[in-house]
């Protein structure tokens, strides 16, 4: 019995990971590959502000058959923006919103990892080595939040996907969130937009908690 259960859970894991990585790739691909536009994404805005050197590019990403992952209706679309929000290029921002919709906490959780991947790729392209999350505040390394890897943050945000105990899956199916702090952490932010801000660090101090770009590109 246990043998069948483990095969079943393995298959579920494979399916789950397959679905989520496909979605993540979609978002990432539509925005980072030289900001190229694939068949699922349309660039709706590109502007260089005259008063400042900020470059802002906005993409409208239509996500097909994504109800189960992003909880979007088929007509809805997601806007993703990656921009420099400081003159010296030290702060990068990932911003996402869904047309006419309040972002639920689970949206924000699902957006965090692809957002980070996007930022990590962009930093790698620009040749930066280290950064810190400064927003959302609940995950801010500047404040001392200890996790500094994509694998760790994914597990922290969705422990149920990494649950070693089979018994607990039933509990999660009933809608019990294992770590409720994540939901409460995000409720203090603006509900219509998800923002992820990072600070680029050139030379980290020995005690500073920083993300290593190269290490996280491989996760």
């Amino acid at each position, binding site marked *: 019995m246990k043998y069948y259960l483990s095969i079943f859970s393995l298959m579920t894991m494979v399916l789950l990971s397959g679905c989520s990585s496909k979605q993540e790739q979609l978002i990432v691909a539509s925005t980072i590959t030289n900001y190229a536009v694939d068949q699922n994404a349309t660039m709706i805005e590109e502007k260089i502000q005259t008063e400042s050197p900020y470059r802002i590019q906005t993409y409208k990403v239509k996500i097909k058959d994504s109800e189960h992952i992003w909880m979007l209706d088929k007509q809805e679309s997601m806007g993703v923006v990656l921009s420099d929000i*400081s003159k010296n290029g030290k702060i990068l921002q990932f911003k996402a919103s869904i047309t006419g919709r309040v972002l639920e906490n689970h949206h924000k959780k699902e957006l965090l990892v692809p957002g980070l991947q996007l930022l990590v790729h962009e930093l790698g392209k620009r040749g930066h080595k280290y950064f810190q999350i400064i927003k959302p505040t609940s995950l801010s390394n500047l*404040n001392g939040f*200890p996790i500094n890897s994509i694998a760790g943050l994914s*597990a922290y945000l969705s422990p149920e996907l990494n649950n*070693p105990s089979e018994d607990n899956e039933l509990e999660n199916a009933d809608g019990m969130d294992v770590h409720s702090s994540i939901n409460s952490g995000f409720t*203090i932010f603006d509900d219509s937009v998800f923002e992820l801000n990072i600070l680029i660090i050139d030379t980290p101090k*020995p005690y500073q908690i920083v993300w*290593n770009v190269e290490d996280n590109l491989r*996760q």
Partner: protein
Amino acid sequence: MKKIFVLMALISVLLNAEIKLTEELIDNDIETNEYQLFVTKTVDVSIDNLKSEVIFTGELEDYFEKYREKYEQDMEEELAIIASSTGKVLFRSIFGGLLFGDNSNVFFGDANYVQVTDYTKNGKFVTRIIKYIVSDENLPKEDQQMIYATTNSDNYHFNEGQAKLIFTTDRKLNEYKKGLK
């Protein structure tokens, strides 16, 4: 291509691996059924032959308070540069609430504990290791200490006597992974 397959296999093994916990952790009746342990090393160097000193053990929130005070002193220069480059309004929106705001409402619900250990050589700071426990229930100090004392560089998820490796910060393993790419 072969390397990619090997790397993928290695990663999947790592992600799905059952890890061996020490007998202390399994045999003792820990207050909580479920917790996650995350290990962070600020500078990725070997800690062999380094002198260690635990500088903080307790709740994450208290560590934030302590860290923040020191941070404000140490990073004054950097913060000033960022403030001047982003403009005051933006600076306030990003850093204002962050450094001077109240963070206490962020982490309710779960119990969050850290142990912070500094490693030095000849009296000079080399690296810091932070062990971070996110637990479903409040953990007595003895339980926290047992987890800190019986773990090394593995990040894992413990639930009802079983544990799964999230990833490892083991340097040799990471170097091996780097070598494959």
